[in-house]
């Protein structure tokens, strides 16, 4: 009975895997799998922190709620991935989120890029959501059952993020002259960070069937992007890729500021709960 009562307070309906369940797993992930979980968890965590800035600042209350919901979904994914990664090194999700230094983060440069105006945030969301959808919809077939379960839960939520960003790309692209100008600017500021998403690092070879080869996602990603931008009568920006290096812990100047805000409370008052 106590189990039934406990489940009533679960935020996640149904039997979806929760971070609390992952923390209690008997199995520990192999080091490569844990490193890979760190990649995906850090992407989600940093993106969520960026999106959270919009709360109380979005153009309309309804959009405020939409962006906050997307941020919360990403925090959920980050919690699962980081909890699982931490199992390999006996560290909790909080240890990993709050007590790692900047070079220990494995997120891509894309997610740390500034929010800019609404169109720039939508451009970043558009790229992230399409990429994550292609990734998670394949990761559900991972030979690692925990990664597969996290992906199965995440892919449904990311499907909505994808839809949300596509709707806005279409509307801003075909809206007013001003909205179109901003959408074009947002896409061209975002595009240098696309290439890094699809780079194969040596870690990928160690993963085998547990992970998804980033380069294999490029073609379906490009096709999906092309379809939306064509409908919005926008063009894929032709800009050189940035240097990247996020997966190796080399970040742009933005991540330090993000971490300062994200980590200050936990570091100032270790063990605090709120």
């Amino acid at each position: 009975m106590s189990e039934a009562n406990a489940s009533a307070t679960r935020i996640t309906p149904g039997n979806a895997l929760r971070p609390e369940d992952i923390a209690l797993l008997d199995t520990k992930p192999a080091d490569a799998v844990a490193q890979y979980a760190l990649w995906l968890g850090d992407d989600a965590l940093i993106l969520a922190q960026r999106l959270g800035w919009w709360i109380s600042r979005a153009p309309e209350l309804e959009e405020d709620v939409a962006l906050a919901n997307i941020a919360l979904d990403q925090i959920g994914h980050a919690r699962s991935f980081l909890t699982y990664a931490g199992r390999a090194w006996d560290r909790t999700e909080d240890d990993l989120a709050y007590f790692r230094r900047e070079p220990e983060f494995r997120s891509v440069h894309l997610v740390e890029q500034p929010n800019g105006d609404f169109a720039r945030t939508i451009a970043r969301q558009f790229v992230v959501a399409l990429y994550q959808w292609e990734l998670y919809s394949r990761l559900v077939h991972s030979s690692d059952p925990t990664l597969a379960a996290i992906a199965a839960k995440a892919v449904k939520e990311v499907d909505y993020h994808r839809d949300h960003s596509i709707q806005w790309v279409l509307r801003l692209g075909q809206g007013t002259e001003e909205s179109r100008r901003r959408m074009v600017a947002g896409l061209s500021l975002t595009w240098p960070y696309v290439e890094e998403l699809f780079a194969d690092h040596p870690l990928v070879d160690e993963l085998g069937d547990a992970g998804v080869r980033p380069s294999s996602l490029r073609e379906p990603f490009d096709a999906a992007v092309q379809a939306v931008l064509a409908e919005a009568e926008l063009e894929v920006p032709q800009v050189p890729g940035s240097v990247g290096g996020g997966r190796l812990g080399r970040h742009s100047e933005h991540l330090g500021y993000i971490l300062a805000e994200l980590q200050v409370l936990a570091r100032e008052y270790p063990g605090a709960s709120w």
Partner: protein
Amino acid sequence: MTGGSTTGDDGATAPSSGPQEPRAAWPLWEVFVRSSRGLSHVHAGSLHAPDAEMAVRNARDLYTRRNEGVSLWVVPATAIITSDPYAKDQFFESPQGKDYRHATYYTKSEGVKHL
């Protein structure tokens, strides 16, 4: 970085050119949620959205996030014809003293069975 905000809008802010024009608000939509199969849609509240497609999405965010619904309707608020609140007295006059509106007011005819 501006204004001490570390993770915020330090990028593509629009050049402000003169006083800002007041922005037209998005139109209002009324939201109806059907909580489970077999029940009817019930008015849940209202929201703003630029068009019908976005209204359905916003409704999903605002009114069904915690598993409340299986179906959503959104209706432009302007499409709803309401009764006149000032004509309330005439419109919703008390049925008191109008027993003839109820079937029990009438005497059953003799010989009619199963009534």
